[in-house]
């Protein structure tokens, strides 16, 4: 699990800039997949939906699910700041969490009222965007039908994949993109001074 306390190649995910790079990398990584899908549909297969495209789509969905697949329950990236110690982004891939970490993870998943509000608000924004995208995809599908009837069957899975991609990843993307820099813990010296 990747939280705002984690680092990405030495850069803290508490910084909006790093989080935006993660978003760009995520969506940028899908461009070749989509490109291959379209290429196969229009220039190679011509007769049937290619197995390679389907495999790529499945891989991409797996990629979505583990990385930006949800704000809380799904996906590894947790956009909100937690109080756990700083960990490396690759740690969950290689190391099993220690028993004591389960408590930390549970704490990490808990959101306060502002974060819950922000999550709900972003889901509304994502829905509004997804609604428009769905309309465009449907229009695209219909236009293809007018153009060439057989392309309807071929493009269906790809458009369905695009819709899945949007619905799964857009809320998380928006939160990671819009959440401001998380400030470092402020004024710890105040408490120290008071104690002395």
């Amino acid at each position, binding site marked *: 699990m990747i939280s705002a306390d984690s680092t990405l190649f030495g850069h803290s995910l508490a910084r909006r800039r790093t989080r935006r790079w993660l978003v760009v990398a995520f969506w940028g990584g899908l461009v070749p997949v989509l490109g291959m899908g379209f290429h196969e549909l229009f220039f190679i297969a011509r007769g049937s939906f290619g197995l390679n495209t389907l495999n790529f789509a499945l891989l991409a969905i797996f990629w979505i699910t583990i990385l930006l697949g949800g704000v809380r329950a799904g996906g590894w990236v947790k956009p909100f700041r937690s109080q756990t110690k700083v960990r490396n982004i690759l740690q969950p891939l290689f190391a099993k969490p220690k028993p004591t970490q389960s408590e930390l993870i549970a704490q990490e998943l808990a959101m306060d009222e*502002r974060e819950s509000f922000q999550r709900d608000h972003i889901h509304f924004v994502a829905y509004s965007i997804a609604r428009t995208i769905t309309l465009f995809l449907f229009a695209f599908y219909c236009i293809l039908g007018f153009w060439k009837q057989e392309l309807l069957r071929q493009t269906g899975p790809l458009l369905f994949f695009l819709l899945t991609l949007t619905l799964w990843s857009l809320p998380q993307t928006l939160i990671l993109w819009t959440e401001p820099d998380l400030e470092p813990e*402020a004024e710890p010296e105040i408490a120290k001074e008071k104690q002395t």
Partner: protein
Amino acid sequence: MNIIHQKSPGESGLYNRIAVLRAERGISRQQLADAMDVNYQTIGFLERGDYSPSLKLALSLAEYFGLPVEAIFSKQPLPPLSQQVYGKQPIQASAQEETMS
């Protein structure tokens, strides 16, 4: 960034004295956040006026600081606490008023 005197209400449209009260008591954002059971980042949003707290959180803050809610949050700009307690105008403001008259 230290926000002691909140000059604008932020996105919430509310002015508050959380930063002042916190500084007075010498507690960090993290300590206050722990006491309120929220993320310390949320305390920062509150202090900047970028987040409007729930009634529950506002009452919890009031209880924590031992003050009425209206002493912490206001829709109008809040005067400095000392001015409100002792009822005197700041010297600069008084001098300006005298020169104007």
